[in-house]
């Protein structure tokens, strides 16, 4: 069963804390993504990874960084989280243009 798994599903952090969002996929897809979704704003691309250690900024990379040391694993890191980073974060992987999404992580920064 093809799957993108995100952990944790829900997370509450204080402003200034570091945040690690984890994502795994079992399809050996080379390309992976991190998006955030806010009400009424659709999906905003944060980072794209084309393979291990081959990462590119998306449309809104400021305040985020990523790590991909294994093909099946892609992490999103928020150093010193801010309240405006409260959002739902989706990880995805793709093959031949088709994108497979995880169920999302709902992050609240207080």
């Amino acid at each position, binding site marked *: 069963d093809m799957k993108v798994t995100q952990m944790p599903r829900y997370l509450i952090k204080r402003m200034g804390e570091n945040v690690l969002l984890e994502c795994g996929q079992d399809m050996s897809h080379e390309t992976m993504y991190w998006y955030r979704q806010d009400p009424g704003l*659709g999906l905003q691309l944060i980072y794209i990874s084309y393979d291990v250690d081959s990462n590119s900024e998306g449309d809104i990379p400021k305040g985020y960084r990523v790590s991909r040391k294994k093909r099946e694993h892609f992490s999103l890191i928020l150093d010193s989280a801010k309240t405006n980073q409260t959002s739902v974060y*989706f990880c995805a992987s793709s093959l*031949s*243009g*088709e*994108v497979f*999404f995880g169920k*999302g992580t709902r992050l609240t920064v207080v």
Partner: protein
Amino acid sequence: AQSVTQPDARVTVSEGASLQLRCKYSYSATPYLFWYVQYPRQGLQLLLKYYSGDPVVQGVNGFEAEFSKSNSSFHLRKASVHWSDSAVYFCAVSYNRIFFGDGTQLVVKP
């Protein structure tokens, strides 16, 4: 610049009525085209995709979409909607990366 436009932010239809959700894209070549659906507190799930060939493609749950090169459109249709079709629908195009529209919220009235 490549873009995807879903002109209707919200569509309300009665159960059993027919449905069309509009999508237009801006790209010089014919990209890969997709429709995704997002149910509450879930990630996006693929409804259907178009790569080439027959411009009418069938998807899951009775959905279909028609590609029109002359109109640069990829509209989603369903002959008879059910209350469980209430969700947010995203059109997407893919070339070297995937671009999503802002989504259309579908509300099906009983």
